[in-house]
C-alpha cells in the first residue's frame, strides 16, 4: 500500500538525482578550460577547439590560470620557433610555433550552471537597424557583424536577433568577460570603406574587391616611422593588400586617363591621389607612382597614420587605426546603417558580490519562513518538510536551467525567488487542508488543496506569458524561470509533499 502510494515521492527523488547530474558539481581542480580559439591561428589548424581542458604544456602541469601564464612565459622566449606539446583532456597536440597559442582560457567552472552577463561581467548591446529588416536581411547583418568582431579579435561573442511586442527587430550582441573598449565603434559604424581616385570609386572593402589583407606579419604590415611635431607624436603605418583582377583592371582604367606630375621631392606621380574613405570621411590620401599609370596592379600598399601625446600613445593609436582599417577591408561594410539603442558594460566584480548576497538572501529567507511555519504549526516534521520541499524546488529549477543551458541572469534569479514564494503558499494550503476538521477522507482534502493549487498555478503562469516578448526579451529570464518553477512545483514537488504529509498524518 505504502509503496503504491509513494510513486510521487519517487518522482521527486529521481528529479533531484537528475538535477544533481545536470548541475554536475565539479570538485577537481586540474586543468584550465579553453573558452575560445582564434580563428586561423596555428593551434586552431591543429584541431584544438573551445571546451577542451588543458592539462599540461611541454611537461608543465596546468592547474590554474597563473600556471598557464608562467608556463607560456617560460616556453616562448624571444620569438624563437619552439616545439610545443599541448596535452588536453581530449588529445595531445604537437606542433612548432614562435608565438603563444592564440586562445582565451578560464578556470574550470564549478558547476554546469551558467550565469548571465549581469552576474558574470561582460558587455551587452542592443542594436537597431535604421530601416526595418526582413529575417534574411537580419541574418546577413548578424553574419557580417560576427565576422567583424571575430576578425577584430573579440572572442566569446553571441549575436542573435530579438523581436519586441511592436514587431521591431533588434540585434542583441553579448560579449562575455572583459569589455573591449571600442565595442561601440565596432558595432555601430557601418564600416564602409571606399578607395577613390577623383570622384571615381576604384574598390571597396570586402572580399569581392580585396582578396587578401596582410596583418600580423611584420614583413608586409606594421608601423613604418614616427616623428615628433609641435602638437605631439605622429606615426605612420602601412600594410599590403591584394585586389581582385576585376578591381585591379578597374583601377588601371581610371589611372590610364590621369596625367603625370613631377613632385618637389624628385619622384613622379599621377596628378590625382588615391583617397581612402571610411564611413564617408577621408582617412588617408596616397600619391600614385607614375609607373602605375594604366597598369593592372593587384598588390597595393595602404598607409595611414596615428597621433598621440607621447611616442607610445602615437604607436598605439596607429596600431588601432591600422587594425580598424584592416578589419573593414576584410569584412566589407555592414549592409545597413545601425544605431545602438542600449549598451551595458557590466563589471565581473559586482557579479561575485551578487552571488554571495543572493545566496545569503535565500538562506536567511528560508530560515525566517521556517520560523513562521514552526510558530504556526508547532510541528518540527511538517515545518522541516516545507523547507525541504522549497530547497528541492530550487535544486530542480537549477538542474533544468543547467540542462537546457539557460543563462541565469538577475531577472531569472528574481523569478526563482518568486517561485519559492508561491511554493510556500501552496505547501501551506496542503498542510492546512489536511488539518481541517471536516469528516472527509484525506484524499478528498488533498483534492481540494490541489484545486486551489492548480488555480493559483494557472493564474500565475498566464500572467507571466506576456513578459516573454515585452522589452525585446530582456526580461524573458524572469518569465522562464517563474513558469519553470511553477510547473516543477505543481507536477513534482507539491504532489510529493502532499504524499509525505499523508504519510505523517497516518503515523499519527
Amino acid at each position, binding site marked *: 500500500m505504502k509503496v503504491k502510494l509513494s510513486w510521487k515521492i519517487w518522482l521527486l527523488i529521481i528529479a533531484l538525482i537528475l538535477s544533481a547530474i545536470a548541475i554536475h558539481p565539479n570538485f577537481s581542480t586540474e586543468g584550465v578550460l579553453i573558452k575560445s580559439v582564434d580563428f586561423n591561428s596555428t593551434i586552431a589548424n591543429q584541431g584544438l577547439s573551445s571546451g577542451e581542458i588543458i592539462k599540461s604544456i611541454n611537461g608543465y602541469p596546468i592547474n590554474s590560470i597563473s600556471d598557464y601564464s608562467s608556463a607560456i612565459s617560460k616556453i616562448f622566449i624571444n620569438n624563437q620557433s619552439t616545439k610545443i606539446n599541448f596535452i588536453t583532456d581530449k588529445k595531445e597536440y604537437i606542433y612548432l610555433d614562435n608565438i603563444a597559442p592564440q586562445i582565451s582560457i578560464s578556470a574550470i567552472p564549478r558547476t554546469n550552471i551558467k550565469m548571465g552577463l549581469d552576474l558574470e561581467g561582460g558587455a551587452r548591446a542592443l542594436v537597431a537597424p535604421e530601416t526595418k529588416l526582413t529575417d534574411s536581411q537580419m541574418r546577413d547583418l548578424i553574419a557580417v557583424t560576427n565576422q567583424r568582431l571575430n576578425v577584430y579579435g573579440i572572442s566569446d561573442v553571441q549575436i542573435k536577433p530579438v523581436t519586441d511586442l511592436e514587431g521591431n527587430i533588434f540585434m542583441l550582441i553579448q560579449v562575455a568577460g572583459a569589455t573591449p573598449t571600442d565595442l561601440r565603434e565596432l558595432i555601430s559604424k557601418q564600416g564602409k570603406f571606399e578607395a577613390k581616385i577623383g570622384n571615381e570609386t576604384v574598390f571597396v572593402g570586402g572580399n569581392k574587391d580585396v582578396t587578401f589583407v596582410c596583418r600580423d606579419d611584420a614583413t608586409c604590415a606594421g608601423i613604418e616611422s614616427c616623428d615628433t611635431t609641435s602638437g605631439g607624436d605622429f606615426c605612420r603605418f602601412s600594410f599590403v593588400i591584394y585586389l581582385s583582377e576585376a578591381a585591379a583592371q578597374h583601377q588601371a582604367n581610371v589611372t590610364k586617363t590621369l596625367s603625370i606630375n613631377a613632385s618637389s621631392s624628385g619622384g613622379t606621380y599621377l596628378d590625382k591621389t588615391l583617397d581612402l574613405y571610411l564611413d564617408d570621411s577621408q582617412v588617408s590620401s596616397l600619391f600614385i607612382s607614375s609607373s602605375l599609370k594604366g597598369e593592372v596592379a593587384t598588390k597595393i600598399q595602404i598607409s595611414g597614420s596615428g597621433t598621440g601625446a607621447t611616442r607610445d600613445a602615437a604607436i598605439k593609436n596607429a596600431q588601432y587605426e591600422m587594425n580598424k582599417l584592416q578589419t573593414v577591408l576584410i569584412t566589407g561594410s555592414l549592409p545597413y546603417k545601425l544605431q545602438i539603442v542600449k549598451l551595458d558594460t557590466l563589471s565581473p566584480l559586482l557579479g561575485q558580490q551578487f552571488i554571495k548576497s543572493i545566496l545569503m538572501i535565500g538562506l536567511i529567507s528560508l530560515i525566517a519562513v521556517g520560523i513562521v511555519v514552526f510558530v504556526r504549526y508547532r510541528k518540527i516534521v511538517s515545518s522541516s518538510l516545507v523547507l525541504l520541499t522549497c530547497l528541492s524546488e530550487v535544486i530542480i529549477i537549477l538542474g533544468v536551467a543547467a540542462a537546457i543551458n539557460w543563462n541565469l541572469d538577475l531577472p531569472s534569479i528574481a523569478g526563482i525567488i518568486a517561485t519559492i514564494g508561491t511554493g510556500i503558499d501552496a505547501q501551506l494550503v496542503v498542510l492546512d487542508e489536511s488539518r481541517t476538521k471536516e469528516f472527509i477522507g484525506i484524499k478528498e482534502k488533498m483534492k481540494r488543496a490541489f484545486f486551489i493549487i492548480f488555480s493559483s498555478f494557472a493564474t500565475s503562469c498566464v500572467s507571466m506569458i*506576456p513578459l516573454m516578448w515585452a522589452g525585446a526579451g530582456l526580461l524573458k529570464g524572469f518569465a522562464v524561470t517563474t513558469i519553470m518553477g511553477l510547473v516543477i512545483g505543481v507536477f513534482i514537488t507539491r504532489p510529493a509533499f502532499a504524499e509525505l504529509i499523508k504519510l505523517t498524518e497516518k503515523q499519527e
Partner: protein
Amino acid sequence: MKEKLNAAYDKHYRLMLILPAILLVISLFYISHLYFTTGDIMRKDVSLTGGTTITVYDGKVDVEDLEKSMSSKLVDISVTKLSDISTGNTIGFVLATQSEENLTQISLENYLGYKLNSTNSGVEFSGSTLSSGFYQQLLQSMILAFIFMSLVVYLVFGTSKHTKAFAAILTAVAAKLTFPSVAVISVTAAICAICAVVAAFYYSKNKKEYILCGILAIFAIITFIFPNYYFMILALPTLIIIYLVYSIPSMAVITCAFADIVMTLFVVDLIGMKVSTAGIVAFLMLIGYSVDTDILLTTRVLKMTSGTVNARILGAFKTGVTMSLASFIAVLVGYIIARNFSDVLSQIFLILCIGLLLDIFNTWVTNASLIKWYVEHKKGADTK
C-alpha cells in the same frame, strides 16, 4: 465571546467594505492627479525614461558632494551607495542620470580624477526611444497579464459555460491586440478564438445567446484582420460586464487583485519611488501572488460542505495569513539585504512587501465581505 464576535461580524461586514472603497478612491484620485500633472501614472527611473547608470567601485567617494557637484552638469541625477554585505563597508556607488553616456562618463571622470574602465566600473545606457517603447510594452503586458488572470479565475469559479466561452473569445482578442506582430501569439490566439467560438455555439441554448455568439465571432474576425489597440475599449468593458453579471465570486477576486495593484501603485507613488523595469516586473509578480489567497478563500467558502460561512472564512483566514506572512517575511529579509547592493532586487522586494501587506487587507476585508454578502444573498434568495 466567540458568538459576540460572530454576531458583530454578521452585522457589520458590509459596512467594512467602506474602508477599501475609500482607500481605492483615494488611490485612483492620487494616481490620476499624478497622471495629469506629470503625464504618467508613476515616476520612472532611467531604465524606463532612457539614460545612463554608472556603477563605480570606489568606497572613498563622498556621495553627497558628488551628487551636489554633478547635478548642474547632468539631467535628473541620483546617487546611491553600495556596501559589502558581510562587512557593511561602502564599496562603491551607483549614479543614474537621464543624460547621454559619453557626457556622464566624462563628467564623472573629471570629478573622480581617473579613467573609468571595465574593471573599476560598469556602464549601462539605454536610448530614450527604446526605453519609452519598453515602458509602453511592459504596461500593455501588465494589462494583458491581468486579463489572462481574470479569465482563469472566471473559468475556475464561473458557472455558465457559454459565457466562459465568450470570455475566452474576448481574451484571445485582447492577446492579439497586445501582440499584433508576434507570430506564436497570433496563431495561438486565433486557434483559441476559433475553439471558443465553436464552444460558445455549442453551449448556447436560445436565440439571444446565438446572436451574441455571432456578434462576438464577427468582432473577433474584425480585430484579427485589423488589430488596432483601440478595440480594447470595446473588449475590456464587455469582459467586466460578463464577469459581473455571471459570477460575483470571480468578480470579487478580480476586484481585489485590481485594488491590490492600484493601492500598491499609490503607496509607491506616495513614497516617491522611481520605478524601474524590475519594478514593473514586481507588479506582474503581485498579480500572481495576490490572487493566491483570494482563490483559497473563495474555494473554502464555496466548496466546503461543513461549518458556517464565518467558520469557513476564519479557517481560510488562518491559512491565508500564514501564507502571506511567510511570503512577506521572506521578501522583507530580501529587501533588507538587497538594499545594500542591488537597486533591481531591492525594488522588486520592496514593491512585493507593500503589495503583500495590502493584499492581506484586501483579501480579508474586501474579498471576505464580498463573498459573504454573495453567499448570504444567495441563501436568502434560495429560501424565498
